[in-house]
């Protein structure tokens, strides 16, 4: 769409809503949106009662994409109140209570909008975390016509968003890049009508009521069921000054920062699949990649190991751990220790990529659901936690294998049982 058409759409919108100088109640809805269907008769009823004082208009967002984008209409349905060309009072979205709509209309008419900066959204299912587990769950609940919101503190994809290539996930013609797989998943989920909220960290939960309450910096989410899919984060390198050297030679994301190490000598710490595979990927940039492994063999798969040993730029030091990081501004040396002989040595390096496993992101759920001593959430094989209506899936769960394939599987199971739970509660 060119600029002129955009301006035209905006102007037409403003002209329409204030046709007779009155304030307006504007409803944005979309196709395939269960809460929109529920809300429509409510909106019609109030429009009959109040249309003398205030304009009632409704738009399908596909007809006014520019306006929807400018007004940042993200949840369906959303009701916005407009007065003299400006948004008045706060908006309503999701499953909207008739009483909330009435109260807002009265406030707008009376010119009294109590300052409430927080948004409130009510959904059928809230999914915390948009990694493969959360996205898979969303696909299932959205297809079950449940109003689904997936919330992520960062952007969708989780660990997959920062993985170069994935070669062990079925249905990808052998290999797919992480970002591409994420894009496919997100597209499919949005197509089914689930709503994705990025950059919104959940900081608090309350699972005690019938409606579960999930809190972010600016929004209160309520849902009949909650699916926890917060995954895991990289385990920090256990050495002094770890934090000080982050970004200054110490990295955890090879995909992100690898390109800054052109022709450099780098080390990778670890020995599992991620470490061995990322070491090979880093040879695209680095002159030499040395793997520092604390035991005398890799736990990575045979095919991963073969790629590693076939690559002329890789090398490995066995039975060795990083003890100290050194350097003025940037790391330029590390002190290594052979854990068999106790012998210490110094090695010149330009950078270190650490891939020594993950720790679950469950701090937020402590005291709310059962968590084991390592921080993993306990579920049964239906992904049910000890609290009815609360499910966990993917890397946050206590389990033996943590891969995309079973994260996606977990997500599907959690969604199916959440759906069963909701329909039994609704009866």
């Amino acid at each position, binding site marked *: 769409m060119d600029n002129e058409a955009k301006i035209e759409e905006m102007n037409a919108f403003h002209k329409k809503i204030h046709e007779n100088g009155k304030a307006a109640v504007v409803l944005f809805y979309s196709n395939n949106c269960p809460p929109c269907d529920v809300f429509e008769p409510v909106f019609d009823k109030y429009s009959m009662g109040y249309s003398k004082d205030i304009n009632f208009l409704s738009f399908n967002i596909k007809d006014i994409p520019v306006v929807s984008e400018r007004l940042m209409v993200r949840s369906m349905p959303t009701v916005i109140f407009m007065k003299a060309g400006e948004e008045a009072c706060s908006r309503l979205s999701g499953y909207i209570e008739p009483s909330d709509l009435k109260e807002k209309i009265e406030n707008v008419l009376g010119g009294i909008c109590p300052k409430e900066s927080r948004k409130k959204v009510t959904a059928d299912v809230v999914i915390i975390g948009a990694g493969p587990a959360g996205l898979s769950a969303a696909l299932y609940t959205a297809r079950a016509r449940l109003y689904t919101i997936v919330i992520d503190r*960062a*952007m969708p*994809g989780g660990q997959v*968003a*920062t993985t*170069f290539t994935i070669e062990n996930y079925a249905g990808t013609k052998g290999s797919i890049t992480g*970002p591409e797989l994420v894009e496919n998943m997100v597209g499919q989920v949005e197509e089914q009508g689930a709503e994705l909220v*990025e*950059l919104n960290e959940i900081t608090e939960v309350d699972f005690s009521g019938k409606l579960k309450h999930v809190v972010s910096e600016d929004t209160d989410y309520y849902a009949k069921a909650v699916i926890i899919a917060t995954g895991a984060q990289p385990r920090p390198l256990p050495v002094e000054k770890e934090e000080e050297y*982050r*970004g*200054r*030679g110490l*990295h955890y*994301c090879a*995909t*992100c*920062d*690898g*390109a*800054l*190490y*052109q022709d450099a000598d780098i080390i990778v710490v670890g020995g599992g699949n991620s470490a061995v595979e990322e070491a090979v990927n880093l040879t695209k*940039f680095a002159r030499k990649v040395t793997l520092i492994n604390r035991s005398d063999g890799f736990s990575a798969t045979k095919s991963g190991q073969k790629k590693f040993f076939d690559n002329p730029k890789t090398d490995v030091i066995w039975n060795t751990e990083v003890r100290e990081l050194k350097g003025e*501004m*940037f790391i330029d040396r590390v002190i290594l220790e052979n854990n068999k002989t106790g012998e210490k040595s110094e090695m010149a390096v330009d*950078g270190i990529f650490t891939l020594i496993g993950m720790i679950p992101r469950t701090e937020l759920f402590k005291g709310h659901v059962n968590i084991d001593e390592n921080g993993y959430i306990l579920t049964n094989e239906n992904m049910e936690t000890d609290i009815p209506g609360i499910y966990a899936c993917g890397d946050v769960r206590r389990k033996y294998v943590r891969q995309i394939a079973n994260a996606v599987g977990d997500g599907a199971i959690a969604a199916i049982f959440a759906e069963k739970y909701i329909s039994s509660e609704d009866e």
Partner: protein
Amino acid sequence: MAVKVYSTPTCPYCTMAKKFLKENNVTFQDIDVSKDRQQAMEMVTKSGQRGVPVIDFNGQIIVGFDKSRLTHLISH
């Protein structure tokens, strides 16, 4: 106003930072440090580190995608 984003194409936080700036109608120069070594060096000197993204917002250097800091700079 001059805003520069030092990034790599494969870094999701870079994508996020650029998307955030676009949404807030901030025009910026996008610098791919995996292609341009001189600019990569400039980024390292400016920020004192090697992680991307780095955002030079009118001379203020922001390392990583720091949403609250960016919001603050945009609104002032």
